[in-house]
């Protein structure tokens, strides 16, 4: 099975998926799209998506909607009020709140991608304003062109602080940023030499952080000739970035990362499979949005190579569950809970961000996920359907325990809403037995069932 991915015809892989009678655009496919493009869809989201059709749904996901503007204004105001305390943990909670409520989930999911890519941690930066500024940079450029994003991040105060590049002196060039910009941000290992690192470091001399703001200090800038990746000239930092991004390795590196984030965790795609995406990036002046659209609308994306082929990240556990069940909760507690599962947003564990895939899973985090779900479901601050309750959400979907076949339908409804794979008969049986057990409070009866479903291995797939 693992070998199959790389026997796929690359041309077929990236052609737009066209729903047909034997493979219709339906709720399971819409759910898959919503889980990957965003953080999952509620019953209402999925119903609307099926009605609209795939192309219109893709449009809606990848473009700014009017509803988003209003939400954005409100949420930005909220962020500003949090800066006063200068506690980046509040920003983590704020961002989760945004993810839960945003009408533009794909933009947020892609911003999270960039956050993992540039992996700057508040544990070191310790300044809410700087972390928020970097977040805004990533958010602004998320679907845009990669070049300006890299140039922006090279001046970003949080990034400079994070990589100890607050000073970069002519006499003693700071190699740290030079290494990371090539190894981690643009090219990947093996596509540059140690010499290139030293030369790129020279190009960035004079780039400084003063009083929390970027400043170019001409007295510290090495104006001499540098030879970077085979090209010579009196380059500055911006020009060094241009040269780096002009390398054939650059679009392939980014395409590969986008593939892993949106398509599947394993196996790694072959160069042939990646090449069309890399070409699209190069031809589009490294614009990201169109390539994400290609991926999310493709044959490959809607095939068994992609469906249920990623491990659910902690953010997708928490935010995914809440969005699917139309719920809100205490986001500070949620942030703590996700931290325990290995994903505290704004606090990536190291410069590589979050590895994802199987690395999310160990016995502590697996049990932790089930425990977090239980905590969320039983917390008094968790409200479903604006306070109407979990049973009301189910009711709107026509699910009621009191009706004949109610418990079975409840299990199936949750499975469709939350799981990327259908339940095997032997797995469904004990859940149905559980659902049949009478309980006075239908909200708690449902919550118990949700807990059981989320403790399944199936729930860890996305």
């Amino acid at each position, binding site marked *: *099975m*693992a070998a199959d991915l790389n026997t796929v015809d690359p041309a077929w892989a990236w052609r737009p998926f066209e729903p047909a009678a034997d493979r219709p655009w339906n709720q399971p496919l819409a759910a898959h799209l919503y889980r990957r493009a965003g953080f999952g869809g509620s019953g209402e989201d999925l119903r609307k998506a099926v009605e609209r059709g795939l192309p219109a749904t893709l449009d809606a996901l990848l473009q700014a909607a009017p509803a988003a503007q209003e939400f954005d204004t409100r949420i930005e105001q909220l962020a500003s009020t949090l800066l006063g305390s200068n506690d980046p943990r509040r920003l983590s909670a704020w961002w989760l709140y945004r993810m839960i409520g945003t009408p533009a989930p794909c933009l947020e999911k892609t911003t999270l991608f960039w956050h993992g890519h540039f992996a700057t941690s508040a544990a070191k930066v310790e300044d809410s304003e700087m972390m928020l500024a970097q977040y805004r940079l990533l958010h602004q450029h998320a679907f845009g062109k990669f070049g300006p994003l890299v140039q922006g991040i090279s001046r970003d105060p949080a990034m400079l602080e994070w990589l*100890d590049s607050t*000073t970069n002196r002519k*006499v*003693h060039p*700071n*190699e*740290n940023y030079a*290494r990371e910009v090539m*190894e981690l941000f643009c090219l990947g*290992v093996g596509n540059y030499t*140690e010499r290139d690192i030293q030369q790129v470091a020279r190009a960035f001399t004079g780039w400084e952080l003063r009083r929390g703001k970027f400043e170019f200090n001409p007295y510290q800038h090495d104006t001499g000739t540098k030879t970077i990746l085979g090209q010579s000239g009196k380059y500055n930092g911006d020009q060094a970035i241009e040269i780096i991004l002009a390398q054939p390795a650059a679009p392939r590196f980014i395409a590969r990362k986008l593939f892993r984030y949106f398509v599947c*965790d*394993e196996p790694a795609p072959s160069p042939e499979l990646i090449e069309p995406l890399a070409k699209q990036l190069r031809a589009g002046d490294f614009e990201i949005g169109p390539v994400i659209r290609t991926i999310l609308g493709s044959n490959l994306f809607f095939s068994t190579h992609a469906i*249920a*082929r*990623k*491990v659910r990240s902690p953010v997708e556990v928490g935010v995914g569950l809440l969005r699917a069940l139309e719920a809100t909760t205490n986001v500070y507690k949620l942030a703590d809970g996700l931290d*325990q599962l*290995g994903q505290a947003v704004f606090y990536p*564990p*190291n*410069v*590589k961000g979050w*590895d994802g895939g*199987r*690395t*999310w*899973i*160990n*016995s*502590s*985090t*697996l*049990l*932790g996920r*089930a*425990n977090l779900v*239980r*905590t969320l479901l*039983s917390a008094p601050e968790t409200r479903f359907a604006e306070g109407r309750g979990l049973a009301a959400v189910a009711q709107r979907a026509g699910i009621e325990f009191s009706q004949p076949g109610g418990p079975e339908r409840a299990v199936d409804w949750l499975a469709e809403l939350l799981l990327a*794979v259908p339940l*095997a008969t*032997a*797995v469904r*049986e*004990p*859940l149905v*037995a*559980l659902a049949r*057990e009478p309980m006075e409070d239908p909200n708690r009866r449902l919550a*118990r069932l949700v807990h*059981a479903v989320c*403790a*399944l*291995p*199936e729930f*860890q*797939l996305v």
Partner: protein
Amino acid sequence: MNTTRRDFLTRTIGTSALLSLAPSIPQFLSGAAVEAADSKRSGDNVLVVVQLAGGNDGINTVVPYGDAEYKKNRFTLALDKSQLLKIDDYVGLHPSMRGFSKLLEAGRLSILQGIGYPNPDRSHFTSMDIWHTAQLEPTRRIEGWLGRYLDAGVKRDGRDVPCLHLGSERQPLAVLARDVRVPSVRSLENFKLDDGGDSRLARAVGEAAGAPRAEGNELLGFLERSTVSALASSKQVHEALKRYDTSINYPGSNLAQQLKLVAQLIDAGMSTRIYYLSLDGFDTHADQGEAHAALLTELSGAVGAFIDDLAAHGHADRVMLMSFSEFGRRVKENASRGTDHGAAAPMFLAGGKVKPGLIGKHPSLTDLDDGDLKYHTDFRRVYASVLQEWLGCDSAAILGGKFDPMPLLGKKA
């Protein structure tokens, strides 16, 4: 019912893997009553690995104060001879390492100098992968060196997991094995399914987790095995921690508390052979002074208390703690009062049976490899020694080559 489930496991996971999962098959699958962990002590040696992540500055850990070049290169970071915990006329320990100094005096610490490997890599990830897999060739870095040891058939008494990773970071490549699943434990609270006392829920979850499923999705298979294994391991660990008594005052640091847990598990008679821990934060590119001191305080305090506690309970002679970092740091300080990625560095071994004192010379501070210390002892020789002398297995197969073991033990193991 039970037969069907056992058949299923055999079909989907395979017999040899089933045997390695055997200790983890939970009650509801095997039908056997859960046996209480008995307090019989296991006679087998235990290895505790403490990895220092980020690249520990060996030069300011085991300080070559006897060399004039030291102060010349470390303009702000140089430690004064009077501050150091002297080992001999050439080197002394960083002042924060009182715990290590006491271990040295008690004959329970070994300092291996000049450890590294040819063509050193200065990328964290590459170099750490090399230490984790003992493979210089990138295409061969699939399983960890300890993972291969586990697959080769570590002796198990049929109940305890052979290797445990303590920490919330991702499972280290070093313990990645083909067949044996190594659980990761962050804290005991997370290591148990919270069912709120709802036993029927717990049972439904267990049944559903282990039920037969269609094959074909490898990730789902991995998740299923991991879930079943997590549920089972949780039971084992909680049962092993019934009662523990110690007079040692462990520091409050994370590492100390983790090592305390290891001491308790060892004393509880768990037959686990390997414990893997990590201490992060050693990548001190700027303002190294305080940060490094704090880390060494944590390391030294935790390890000191741990070895003392083991000794008090009579286990010191069958435990060896090994500490390493993915590389050392440059000889010359940088312009940010820190140091950049380097190469050769010291390793530490602690325990009742180690060969105490300095092993190997300190690398020259002038005969350098592009600004970095030159190694003289390949770390794979240390691994070979640990595998052969301490864990009692053939190292060549595991390391993919023959490396000359070095005498690491003071007394016969």
